[in-house]
């Protein structure tokens, strides 16, 4: 492909908007929106599934484009899918805490869904940091969660391969946050710095070396948009997350308290499905896999995929394997 071809293809793809499945906003509060996706297949029955995405990055990665959409894959399996969009925190959100996110916002979303369906409990799918939020919610409100799915979720933050944890160990987070928000752009650069040569050089060389195929370039543009669409982080929640989890590893030690209540993973008795990316550079497999030894549930399943962090959402293999695995696991419960 010539540079001219590439630039023409990139320009043509610049209008591409991420998101392909039809959805409606069923509830909103402040910057938060709760979406429900329209079904595209015969309902499989069972409780609805609420996807809890991370606070870093935007949740549309779950529904990037038709052939790269975890949500579309789930809809095709007849799953009733809800998704939380946390929005973009601004200066007014600087004192929003983890307790606010878990015991206020997430709890309110769950309540809305339960009320709409006249149910006592639903299914939760927590993605990355959203998995931590989901684990905490399930520990605080076990009666409201029927089944819990965690996807590329860090649980033990002190595994040897966890580079972010090592970097965070001696950083004075309180001084860094300083009662403000944390820049999403700064975090982005930090994530790129985990593998700087691959993520800032090779990726673009590969693009130029390949074909000018429209679908390929459009996919590149959508992923690129997502990668650099990083909301600022509410300062208080960020400080708590880094201090309590990355530095003190409280979740794995059963020492985490949210809203004054202890999060004891040993008390989680509900069925758990843990989806692990074996080539995940952000959340090392061991950090996710630790959940097995920490939870009290006897119904624990771990599925390992030879994929990286982002590949778990959008790779062709993930499209083929992850939604059916989730749907089958849910159907059997």
């Amino acid at each position: 492909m010539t540079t001219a071809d590439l630039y023409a293809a990139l320009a043509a793809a610049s209008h591409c908007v991420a998101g392909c499945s039809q959805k409606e906003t069923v509830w909103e509060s402040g910057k938060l929106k709760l979406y429900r996706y329209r079904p595209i297949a015969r309902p499989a029955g069972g409780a609805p599934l609420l996807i809890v995405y991370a606070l870093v990055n935007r949740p549309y990665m779950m529904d990037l484009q038709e052939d790269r959409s975890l949500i579309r894959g789930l809809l095709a399996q007849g799953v009733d899918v809800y998704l939380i969009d946390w929005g973009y925190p601004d200066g007014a959100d600087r004192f929003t805490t983890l307790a606010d996110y878990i015991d206020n916002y997430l709890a309110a979303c769950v309540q809305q869904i339960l009320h709409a369906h006249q149910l006592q409990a639903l299914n939760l799918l927590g993605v990355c940091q959203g998995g931590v939020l989901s684990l905490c919610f399930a520990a605080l409100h076990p009666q409201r969660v029927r089944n819990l799915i965690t996807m590329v979720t860090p649980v033990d933050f002190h595994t040897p391969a966890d580079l972010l944890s090592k970097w965070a160990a001696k950083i004075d987070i309180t001084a860094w946050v300083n009662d403000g928000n944390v820049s999403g752009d700064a975090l982005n650069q930090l994530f790129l710095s985990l593998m700087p040569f691959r993520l800032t050089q090779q990726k673009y060389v590969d693009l130029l070396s390949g074909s000018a195929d429209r679908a390929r370039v459009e996919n590149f543009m959508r992923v690129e948009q997502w990668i650099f669409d990083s909301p600022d982080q509410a300062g208080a929640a960020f400080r708590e997350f880094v201090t309590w989890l990355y530095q003190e590893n409280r979740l794995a030690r059963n020492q985490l308290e949210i809203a004054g209540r202890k999060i004891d993973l040993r008390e989680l008795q509900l069925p758990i499905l843990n989806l692990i990316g074996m080539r995940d550079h952000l959340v090392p497999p061991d950090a996710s896999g630790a959940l097995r030894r920490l939870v009290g549930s006897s119904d624990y399943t771990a599925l390992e995929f030879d994929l990286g962090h982002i590949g778990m959402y959008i790779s062709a293999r993930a499209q083929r394997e992850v939604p059916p695995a989730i749907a089958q696991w849910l159907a059997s419960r």
Partner: protein
Amino acid sequence: MEREPWRQWQQFASLWAAASSESPGRFGRDGGVGFAPLMDAVERFTAAARTFLDNCAGGSSHEAEAVRVFSDFLRERFADFQMPWGAFGVGAGAARGAPPPSVGDLPAFGASREQQQRWQRLASAAQRIDDAQRRLQRLWSDMLRDAAAAFAARLMSPPPGPVSSEALQALYAGWIDCAEDAYARMAHGEAFCNALAEFVNASSQWRLELQASTGHMAKLLDLPTRSEINTLLQRLKSIEDRLHAAPEPTAPTRPSRKRSARSKTKP
């Protein structure tokens, strides 16, 4: 000395050169946008690889020198690579905006004591940033030397078979692999983690002191300070928290028809 790698690089570079020459003017290489820096990097890499292989061809006695020259090139090429220490709000050169070092030597007293102490702390933080930056650059430079040496060793045993675009990409990927391996070893090391933490912590201190100075100026001009706005936000959040914790209000009892009718009659 095996010449195959050089031939591979030459063909690889010609692909890039062709792409470059076909670019329309507005996307030209001097535009400073998009892929121009990457193409430039590949061409420079190619030239350095050629020199390296030519030097190696001079015999085994020249090999060590060739590796050194090639390593130096890679170290120089990536010396200014943007790294996480640019991500924390304060990058290199913080010390340039700091007060002169002489301020730090003067004892603080009198009416301007607080301001002088603040400037001294600012200068101290800027110095710490500068020191940490130097430590990080040294580690980065050492890492590049290791990566370059590993890659040079790889170049001496090229994969057999005909040259293809896949083979060319694999060669480039080889450099990336070597660089990432060396980087991972460095990034996981205690020296790097300590230097990074010191850089971030000093940057936080520097920003804190600068904020305090700005706050001081804001007070003089009767402008709201960050601290005042934060206090208001905290009070607002406290009210929200109390509302959230309060029990749901019970539904008001429906007024009786009679009572309602009576109230209607009131003016």
